[in-house]
């Protein structure tokens, strides 16, 4: 191969590495539009698509940071269930004991988020001070958090006792001027979607513009070298797991308010895998040391679009896993070949 064409190849590879996920998104978007026309390409569908993927998206933002630090968190789905179960129980008992609805929802929400933070910190402590591999430590969490949630509700559902406020938060959103749904009501961008985008933006900032982000990358790329450069590896890792837990708490609040109840057996089930998949599709290296939050956001949208497309075209939901699996494997293959 001549030197020139080699250079061209390198440029192509480098841009594939950087923009591959965007190209995939555009291609999939074009394909869906072409295939399904206005069934896919309408504001109401986009709203639903975003709304139903915001929760996984928020988890994926945190997961991106965890994976960049060369870690992983398998417990996030169970963490969501646990935080939602405890938070909603607290809220209900406050309402039962005569507190105002506002107080109950606020306190319940705070408890939800704090339980997430605590569970995440526990993961961090196990990884940092217990010196347990993140995969194993959080595998423990995956089993344990879910089990505690099930025990609290006796494997059943916890219905919210909040008359209106809780679900109003969960179902509400910011009105989008000039857009209406098929029933002629003004279309809203759900709060969960707004929170997802805001957190993603913060996540990207933290990663690329803050000292913590720089340290995350350094620890993920080479832990020993990070230690030799004077970075407190333990503190960095502890914080990233705690942050992940905090985000799981936020997701727990979003999900339980949206459903106005918590199904301890179902809530967040398998969402750790969706989150990890989105991170990988987004171009973050599973080996750590390299990644980007915006790529993860695109990854979430790609996964969401696939589900959306299959649903619209009436493909049995049982097939969705197979298609998603294929996409994940292809994404990793493309990235690996371009990086070597």
């Amino acid at each position, binding site marked *: 191969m001549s030197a020139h064409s080699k250079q061209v190849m390198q440029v192509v590879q480098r841009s594939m590495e950087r923009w591959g996920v965007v190209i995939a998104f555009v291609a999939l978007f074009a394909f869906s539009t072409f295939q399904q026309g206005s069934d896919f390409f309408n504001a109401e569908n986009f709203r639903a698509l975003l709304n139903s993927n915001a929760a996984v998206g928020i988890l994926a933002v945190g997961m991106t940071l965890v994976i960049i630090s060369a870690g992983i968190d398998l417990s996030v789905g169970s963490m969501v269930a646990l935080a939602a179960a405890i938070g909603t129980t607290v809220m209900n008992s406050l309402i039962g004991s005569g507190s105002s609805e506002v107080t109950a929802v606020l306190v319940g929400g705070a408890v939800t988020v704090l339980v997430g933070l605590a569970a995440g910190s526990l993961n961090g402590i196990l990884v940092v001070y217990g010196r347990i591999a993140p995969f194993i430590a959080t595998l423990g969490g995956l089993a344990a958090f879910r089990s505690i949630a099930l025990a609290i509700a006796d494997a059943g559902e916890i219905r919210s006792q909040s008359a209106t406020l809780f679900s109003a938060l969960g179902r509400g959103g910011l009105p989008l001027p000039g857009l209406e749904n098929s029933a002629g009501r003004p279309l809203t961008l759900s709060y969960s979607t707004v929170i997802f985008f805001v957190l993603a933006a913060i996540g990207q900032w933290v990663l690329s*513009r*803050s*000292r*913590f982000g*720089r340290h995350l*990358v*350094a620890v993920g*790329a*080479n832990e*020993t*070298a*990070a*230690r*030799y*450069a*004077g*970075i*407190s590896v333990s503190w960095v890792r502890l914080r990233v797991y705690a942050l992940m837990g905090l985000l799981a708490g936020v997701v727990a609040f979003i999900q339980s308010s949206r459903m106005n109840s918590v199904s301890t057996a179902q809530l967040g089930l398998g969402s750790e895998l969706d989150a990890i998949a989105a991170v990988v599709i987004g171009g973050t290296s599973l080996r750590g*040391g*390299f990644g980007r939050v915006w790529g993860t956001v695109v990854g979430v949208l790609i996964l969401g679009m696939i589900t959306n497309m299959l649903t619209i075209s009436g493909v049995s939901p049982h097939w969705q896993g197979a298609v998603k699996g294929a996409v994940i494997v292809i994404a990793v293959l493309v990235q690996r070949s371009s990086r070597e």
Partner: protein
Amino acid sequence: MHLGATLRFVSARSSRTGIFRSAALSAERVTVEFPGVRALDCVSLDFHGGRIHAIVGENGAGKSTLMRVLSGAMRPTAGAISLDGRVMRFVQPADAIRAGISMVHQELNLVRTLDIAENVMLGREPTRTIGLRVDRAKQRTRARELLGVLGSELNPDTPASDLSIAQAQFVEIAKCLASDARVLIFDEPTAVLGERESKRLFSVLRRLRDDGRAIIFISHHLDEVVAIADEITVLRDGKVVDSFARATDGTIRSIDGVIADEGMVANAMVGRPLASIYPEKGVAIGDQVVIELVDFGAQGCSHGINLQVLPGEIVGLAGLIGSGRTESAEAIVGLRPRTGSVRIGGRDERLSSVREAMAAGVVYVSEDRKGRGLHVTLSSMINLTLPSLDSCTEFGGLRVDTGSEVAIGDRWIKAFSIRCARPHAPISFLSGGNQQKISLARWLETKPRVLIIDEPTRGVDVGARAEIYRIIAELAREGLACIVISSELSEVIGLAHRALVMRGGVIAGELSRERLARADAQECIVRIASGVLEEGLVQR
């Protein structure tokens, strides 16, 4: 599998009875290019069976690259490798091994959880019951036979994890013999050995040579090379610059037939008189001790170290690998637990982490650039500002001020003339010299008072070496207290105001500036380091 294993046995046996097919391995116009560097430039060399061929050259001369090409670990950009006149296209080391070319790596590659016999026969286990079961008895006998060829009486049942480095090396060689190697490549085999062990290794090399094998051997120790090699090739900047061969009378002679010694080989390696690459030594400024070690030690590695360094002084720390130099340095900056105390500017300091050490003005530049000193997958910019990142963050670390970060990076890139095409590209493709400048610059940015630099020119080419020496001398002249750890004696002698020699975790001797200036300083350091000279301290 089973049949193949048997056939191998037969051919390997024949080797020991002396009817060994001798090999001729040739490199023909081999060129290897890395981005920005030509590591090998049109190298043509022949290696013959029954000869020990030493390759010498400075760090970065291309020795390791050549060995990697010969052993199939790397494909040349241009040129070819041929064995017995047939051009070989090795894609991976396994291809070379199959062709009879084995490499004994510097870092030994034994599987620690297996025993010697299993390691020796790894990948070619003798089997029985149509290849389904490993024949343990045969495996053991065979391993013992191969070790016997080397004159070693190690028990094949010993777990690999129990072996000393020298023993592991023997097992590694036996492993090569098991694969029927006709060409054996040794990458600095004596670097990790003591003197007696080295002698033993040499007798093994001679024995293997006398069997008709071609031995290729890299070493930094020219005395060894002159003693053992039948042929010596000198590489410099990726080119073959000179060669020597042993004449029938046993002397080493240059191409024009002049009897050669170590000095001649050394001059050929460097290509210019050695002294010129070292800057003039400045004088220590003032008498206020900057850093003082009192009865200091790295737990389990060194002890009883007392040392004072003045501003502007460069103290060399010599000694063999494993003598506790690096460990002690790491203990000073809080990377290891320590005993004794460290005083900075007269005050006892805890320095329990790199951060605290940095705050007190003590920094350590690691010898292991790729594993510890730098993040090779990250950019020049990130590497340059990582330790001093706090100085360009705002709002409690929430925002890194990229403007001032880029300014810091650019300043160092300019000051040290670091050649990096794109400051935001990973540094893995930079040359050793440029990487070393980055790992030095990142610590200087923290404005230290004490610089501990470990093997400052390991893997650095000659040109960048001179620059690094100049930088260190310059820093000292500006009042920095420097401790230079080096295994290269000429470096210690050429750079330091005085030198300490460590052996077995203690300071075994000290050479003053005057003593370092004497012609036999190098020899003196070697003697102290190897324990020949016990009363090193008297030698001031």
